[in-house]
């Protein structure tokens, strides 16, 4: 792999064949003109085209291959959503456009808020958070603001089940709370007895993902909600796994007071490169005054942004404007395409695909982390037996999958399950793709039993081989040294 600078040859350029008049720089004062040429790569047009085409071919994406990255919902992003979100009226709008000249965009955002309320059973939504982590932050900040508004200042503790995403305790700490871990039973449900012992006047709330990261639905959710509410705490829903229950059951009906939804996951906008995302937050009636700003209101058939003047108790703004408009628009269009019936199909096919793969995994001799329970939209294989008997790890399996053309599932998460692969196929995939992946897993299992070195040496087919993870974690300084 080379940088475009390494293709550079002095004096070569990519001037188009039709002559172009040289731009005049007469208006720029002499002292501001650069003395030396900029250090740009000097390549022909064809070299530039080849370089960037090659780079794009090295991309791995849902557009090219199966991407069963558990907990990340790497589903297909319909092209039509992209096309419509890129309409010039949306694309060229300035964020400071006066509301009266921005009615089309505001109408879409107002409807998106309303659809999210309907889909999740919450009373109001704010689209302000820029991504999931900011959504979590906003959610817990609202719980804090709610307790403080009532003079209930002693609630300093957030409860988090040990199966939770690592972001949950991190969020609670960021918001100034201490975290108490609640254990999970072997069947995947929260340990109710431990929960009952943990709640008290210090409890600000509980953060829960349902279905949990163990890939099962929390069956005692109504009891949990009751325990938390009776102790005076609030219930926070991490929307990471919303895809599994879309159109089937709503967090609001389960008793949740706050929810964040990763629109980029459940509502299918391109993600996987670290952003941009959307962590829209929804709340029950009593938390409405605290929603982050701006939100969109409709008055006399006109739409406008609500600001701190309208909502003095708000936790405030999370960025200069309202979320990532491109992501919000794609999510809006996706939801309009799906409609109510489509949302039900999303959940049904996502769980059907996961359960089909889970039964295939069992049939092919893999050990399931939670056996004898129906999976949600994802499920977990534990490779602890393979690790013990053949000295191959979940990481070795994951690396070998790369050789076979698949994105690896999530590894070593949730932390409760040793040597695990968390597999989420999403509703987008056809049965052939699911079978192909299971064939690959079975092949790797066979290799582990007969020639484990193949796994240890993987990946062999990619531009970058096995990384030194310890060095990558400890020495963060990177400098380009040229091709060797």
């Amino acid at each position, binding site marked *: 792999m080379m940088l475009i600078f390494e293709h550079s040859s002095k004096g070569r350029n990519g001037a188009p064949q039709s002559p172009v008049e040289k731009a005049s720089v007469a208006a720029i004062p002499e002292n501001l003109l650069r003395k030396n040429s900029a250090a740009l790569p000097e390549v022909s047009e064809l070299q530039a085209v080849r370089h960037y085409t090659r780079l794009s071919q090295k991309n791995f994406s849902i557009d090219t291959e199966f991407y069963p990255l558990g907990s990340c919902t790497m589903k297909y992003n319909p092209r039509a959503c992209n096309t419509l979100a890129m309409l010039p009226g949306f694309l060229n709008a300035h964020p400071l456009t006066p509301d009266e000249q921005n009615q089309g965009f505001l109408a879409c955002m107002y409807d998106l808020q309303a659809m999210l309320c309907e889909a999740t059973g919450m009373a109001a939504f704010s689209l302000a958070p820029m991504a999931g982590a900011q959504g979590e932050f906003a959610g817990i900040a609202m719980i804090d603001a709610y307790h403080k508004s009532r003079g209930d200042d002693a609630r300093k503790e957030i409860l988090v089940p040990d199966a939770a995403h*690592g972001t949950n305790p991190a969020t609670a700490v960021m918001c100034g709370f201490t975290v108490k871990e609640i254990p999970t039973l072997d069947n995947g449900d929260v340990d109710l007895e431990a929960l009952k012992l943990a709640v008290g006047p210090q409890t600000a709330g509980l953060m829960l993902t349902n279905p949990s990261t163990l890939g099962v639905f929390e069956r005692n959710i109504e009891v949990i909600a009751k325990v938390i509410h009776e102790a005076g705490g609030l219930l926070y829903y991490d929307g990471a796994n919303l895809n599994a229950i879309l159109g089937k059951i709503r967090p609001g009906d389960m008793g949740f007071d706050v929810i964040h939804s990763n629109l980029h996951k459940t509502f299918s906008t391109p993600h996987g490169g670290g952003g941009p995302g959307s962590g829209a937050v929804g709340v029950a009636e009593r938390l409405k005054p605290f929603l982050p700003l701006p939100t969109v209101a409709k008055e006399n058939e006109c739409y406008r942004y609500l600001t701190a003047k309208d909502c003095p108790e708000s936790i405030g703004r999370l960025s200069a404007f309202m979320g990532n408009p491109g992501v919000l628009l794609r999510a809006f269009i996706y939801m309009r395409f799906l409609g109510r019936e489509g949302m039900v199909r999303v959940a049904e096919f996502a769980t059907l695909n996961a359960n089909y793969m889970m039964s295939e995994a069992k049939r092919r001799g893999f050990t399931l982390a939670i056996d004898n329970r129906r999976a949600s939209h994802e499920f977990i294989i534990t490779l602890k037996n393979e690790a013990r008997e053949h000295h191959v790890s979940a990481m070795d399996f994951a690396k070998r999958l790369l050789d076979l053309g698949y994105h690896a599932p999530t*590894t*070593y998460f949730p*932390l409760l399950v*040793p040597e695990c692969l968390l597999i989420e196929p999403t509703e987008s995939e056809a049965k052939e793709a699911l079978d192909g992946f299971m064939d690959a897993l079975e092949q790797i299992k066979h290799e582990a039993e007969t020639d484990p070195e193949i796994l240890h040496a993987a990946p062999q087919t990619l531009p970058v081989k096995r990384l030194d*993870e*310890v060095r990558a*974690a*400890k020495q963060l300084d990177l400098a380009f040294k040229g091709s060797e």
Partner: protein
Amino acid sequence: MSEVPSELKYTKSHEWLRVEDDGLITIGITDHAQELLGDLVFVELPEAGTEFVTGDECCVVESVKAASDVYMPISGEIVEVNEALADEPEIINTSPYDSGWLFKVKPSADELADLMDADAYQTEIEE
């Protein structure tokens, strides 16, 4: 097979304890724990002088796979921490029971009887 020295005491959360001649107690994480965690890249040690009670989160060990809390196995005051781990946390991987110790505690109560012996811990990690 993980090593489980017979002279040490153990907890379910994979800490080990050794009673030293001067009455201090040295604490670390077990061979089994370091195997589960994989290559360690960072250790956040408590400060000397801090007092903890049994079950407190007192230390964080971070590997390429996960960050994991270390729980205080007995109540007491931290009197010394293993400074060498700041630069070379991988010592825990190579020598969990010897040069990979985490910290030394002056116990404030006699709670050693509540802990597991080597046989019990061995049974525990075999599931």
